[in-house]
């Protein structure tokens, strides 16, 4: 396993450098040299012009510029934002990254879990009427034109029913006298969600070995309820008492985007789980399990679903990029000021340093997500573990 991880890290570094070079060459290929034309922007003082020229080595040949760019990347130096002058791209990204991270993590976890559960049930009920209906709904939500769907959701829940806020991630009125910045709140929210999910996973792993199904379900339910009680305690302790109101405000604004993306994103996982489950159910060991007289639910959960999980995780590795794309769109439509909106704005305003920095960061983001998914895949698939040992 360690050897496998080391090899993956080694590959990761190579791909990462390739990515940096590709992204620089891409930006450099913009016709009319976007760097220089935009530097003649009257909002930028001449010092900034000088500095950016030196930083990107604009008077040097391409290969030296690429090397300079990689060096600057590791220094975290991208010059200045053209449109928001005194700010640097890194400051802008540092401000927006927690927001994107929060949304992305929530959507991923929720949609993957619901997708897997629904796919499992779908494959099991093959041929029944409910299967057809759920499949049709899943196909619809898998192929629905996402921006349109999101706008419809906004219209229904935000406007017509007026249950949830339309756009933005906080009510400014609530935050007038706030001693915290929104990023602090975001970071404590991320910490909380991470803690919550780790404890939940631990509970899950421990309860996995309980044999009887009803007992296992009860244990899980009890652990979930106690977790919720614990989290209420958590938010009422220490510094979090004051942060509670603001955290709640953000969470309230997050419901609609998360729900919308989940409705769209769960379907891919569900449909794939269905396919792989159907393949697995043709295998001989399922027949053996049936012949042994094991209960249907147990065959489904223990024998079939666990083997069907592997390809689903693989596809999850492939779809991470799709989900990042989706969150770019989500941010644009729900005016959630995160990385996705930053990259779209900077491209539209031709703010090249910001576009470059945020594109690189989204790339790294995708890379790390890939890496984590790869590792979990290796953990799930014993064949990879054994191969890398031998």
């Amino acid at each position, binding site marked *: 396993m360690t050897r496998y991880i080391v090899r993956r890290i080694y*590959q990761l570094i*190579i791909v990462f450098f*390739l990515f940096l070079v590709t992204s620089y060459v891409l930006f450099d290929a913009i016709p009319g040299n976007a760097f220089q034309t935009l530097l003649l922007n009257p909002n930028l003082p001449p010092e900034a012009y000088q500095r950016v020229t030196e930083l990107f080595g604009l008077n040097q040949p391409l290969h030296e510029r690429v090397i300079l760019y990689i060096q600057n990347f590791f220094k975290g130096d991208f010059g200045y934002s053209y449109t928001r002058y005194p700010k640097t791209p890194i400051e802008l990204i540092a401000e927006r990254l927690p927001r994107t991270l929060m949304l992305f993590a929530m959507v991923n976890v929720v949609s993957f879990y619901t997708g897997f559960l629904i796919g499992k049930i779908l494959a099991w009920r093959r041929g029944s009427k409910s299967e057809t209906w759920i499949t049709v709904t899943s196909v619809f939500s898998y192929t629905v034109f996402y921006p349109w769907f999101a706008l*419809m959701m906004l*219209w229904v829940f935000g406007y017509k029913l007026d249950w949830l806020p339309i756009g933005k991630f906080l009510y400014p009125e609530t935050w007038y006298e706030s001693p915290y910045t929104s990023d602090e709140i975001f970071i404590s929210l991320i910490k909380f969600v991470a803690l919550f999910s780790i404890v939940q996973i631990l509970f899950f792993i421990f309860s996995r070995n309980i044999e009887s199904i009803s007992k296992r379900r009860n244990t899980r339910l009890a652990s979930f309820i106690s977790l919720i009680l614990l989290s209420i305690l958590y938010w009422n302790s220490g510094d979090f008492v004051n942060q509670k109101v603001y955290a709640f405000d953000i969470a309230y604004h997050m419901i609609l985007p998360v729900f919308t993306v989940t409705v769209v994103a769960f379907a891919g996982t569900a449909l794939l789980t269905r396919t792989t489950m*159907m393949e697995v159910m043709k295998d001989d060991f399922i027949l053996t399990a049936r012949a042994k007289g094991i209960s249907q639910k147990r065959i489904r959960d223990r024998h079939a679903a666990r083997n069907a999980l592997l390809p689903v995780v693989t596809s999850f590795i492939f779809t991470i990029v*799709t989900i990042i794309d989706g969150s*770019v769109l989500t941010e644009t439509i729900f005016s959630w000021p995160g990385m996705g909106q930053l990259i779209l704005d900077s491209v539209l305003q031709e703010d090249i340093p910001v*576009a470059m920095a945020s594109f690189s960061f989204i790339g790294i983001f995708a890379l790390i997500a890939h890496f984590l998914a790869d590792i979990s895949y290796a953990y799930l698939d014993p064949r990879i573990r054994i191969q890398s040992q031998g």
Partner: protein
Amino acid sequence: MENDKNIPSSIRKASIKKNWAMFKQSKLGMIGLYIVAFFLFLSLLQPFLFITGIWNLGTYDPVVGYSEQFQDFLVVDCPKEYPTEKYQSRTDCPARNEINIKTLFYSDAKVGDTINQNLQPAPPSRKHILGTDPLGRDIFSQIMEGSQVAFVLGLLSATLGVGISTILGTIAAFYGGRVDAYLMRQSDLILMLPTLPLLFIISAFSELQVWHLAVVLGTIGGLGGSVITIKSQALQVKVKPFVDSARITGGTKMNILFSHVLPNVAPLALLFMVFSVTGAIASESVLSFLGLLNIDMSWGLMIYLAQVEGYIFSGMKFWWLILPAGLSVTFLAGGFYLVGRGLDEVFNPRLRDR
């Protein structure tokens, strides 16, 4: 291709017939096929209508057409405060057949009168089946134009992508070693590129045309994950006995590659092609929805216009501006997806019911 001549046409016909029968069994696959056929019909119908002169270009052109739409309106005075007995909220007044007296100029009409006015967007009528947009253009004609764009783009990018990935995948499987390692790293890199931000950046290069987009999407799709899958399929074919026997009988590498390995990878490639059409259609719509594509008319652009002009939150009052375009994208993408699933069941014996 000598190999093809050796197969009697009757056997090939029988095999096609068998596969067709198998495809027909999947109900959802057939529904998908009908949907795709319907949109294909729509996209072919528009030029037919223009050429035969049933539709007048001046009225029905999807981009510059215009026609006056006179309707009867009841003149009302919208209240200052809501809710009232008749109206729930501000957006309900004026209702569809009413006109606010405050927005009525050059007219002596009083509250309660009925006047005949040319007002766009006009609701569906016999002349315009799906109504008109705020500029007086026929929505149905726009839908047809949009489906032409979707088909051209989807098929072009899917063919390109699948061509690239099939060739690269089989080469990777066949030559192995360094070529394989290079191609796999390359597709790792492409897989990692966030497509949508990449497309944003490419749209900053120049005015993106539809065929530019098709080439970009095809290349990204062709170099990415599908290479890996096709390679693994080709690896399975490579170790089959008939490849060995072809080599023993003196077949050259190229010969084996083209007449033995490629035909066996083709079904999988076809599957990828159908699935990637879905992605291409969605990408085009998203880009034109964000206003990044240089295009006269497409489904995404129709939604973009409806949103920019503020009709999205008017709800169902102007449904013909919102629903047809959104549903067309969804249904055509869904249709291709369903066809792909049906094909999957034909090519993958483990998915079959029996």
